[in-house]
């Protein structure tokens, strides 16, 4: 018997990946599994990356009941007002949607940008701050 190639996908409507705070994100998750999932859920969370230990906060979870071996589900989640996506030299904060299928914690993640400009906020470097002209 031919082995099934496992695929897991998270897609937003129109492929958008930059959003305003408070905006509703809609999309679909889909999967094709070799081993059936007993539990499937979508998580909306932010996390940090950089020099220090990672912080992570799940702000919403959407459970998908009775997941089939091959399945496709729609979702709709509202983003909170913050924190915004940003990056400095020492830390970045990123938003993501992740579908997780158990057993095995099989997962797929889609990174989002959340800010009032729909663009990641870039923190100025120390030299940029100190070099700024006084008001």
């Amino acid at each position, binding site marked *: 018997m031919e082995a099934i190639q496992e695929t897991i996908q998270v897609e937003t409507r129109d492929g958008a990946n930059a959003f305003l705070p408070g905006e509703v994100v809609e999309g679909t998750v889909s999967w094709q599994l070799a081993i059936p999932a007993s539990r499937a859920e979508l998580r909306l969370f932010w996390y940090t*990356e*950089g*020099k220090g230990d990672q912080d992570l906060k799940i702000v919403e979870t959407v459970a998908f009941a009775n997941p089939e071996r091959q399945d496709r589900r729609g979702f709709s989640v509202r983003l909170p007002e913050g924190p915004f996506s940003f*990056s*400095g*030299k*020492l830390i*970045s904060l990123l938003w993501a949607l992740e579908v997780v299928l158990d057993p095995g914690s099989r997962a797929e993640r889609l990174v989002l940008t959340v800010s009032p400009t729909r663009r990641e906020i*870039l923190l100025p470097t120390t030299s940029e701050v100190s070099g700024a002209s006084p008001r």
Partner: protein
Amino acid sequence: MRARDNPFAVQRVLEVRYRLSGTTWEALMERLVALRFRAALVGPHGSGKTTLLEDLEPRLQRQGFRLRKLTLHEGDRRLSASQRRDLFQDLSPSEILLLDGAEQLGRFAWLEARTRSRAAGGLVVTSHRPGLLPTLCECRTTPELLDGILRELLEDAPSPPADELFRRHGGNLRDALREMYDLYAEATSSAAARTGSPSPAGR
């Protein structure tokens, strides 16, 4: 460079797994069984003991053990009441205790841990010094090991010479990789870092 693009961001470094040298996982597990799952991973700061312990965990679970783990930090001379409860309450032979940083414990706390762990199926610790339990693996670092890790993290980008970096940090790979983070953070753009110019290797 944005923190998330830094090849030495903590999350990427944590993905680098322990590289066994001079032995195999099969041999290591056989020795652990021979030691009745009571053993120590020994080595200096930043030599990979914690990573090796993490890599051991799924292998122990595959053998049917449940794990109770405690990470001790600088100055943790004794266990708190909640830590003692989490570690020792209703222990069974199907469980293994993992103590990361066991050398932090004072003499009496260690004796208590060792004694009460007898109700478990095993006790595996990491320690800077040998002698707490029979040594399962001595974690050593070399410039070649650091070089391999740098190459893994930098993928196709030019890798800086590891020898001087290794010496500067006395073989502490964690500190060496932190220095690399800072060097890359100072790079003016991700493109510059990818091409190695300005090159942290030049330091």
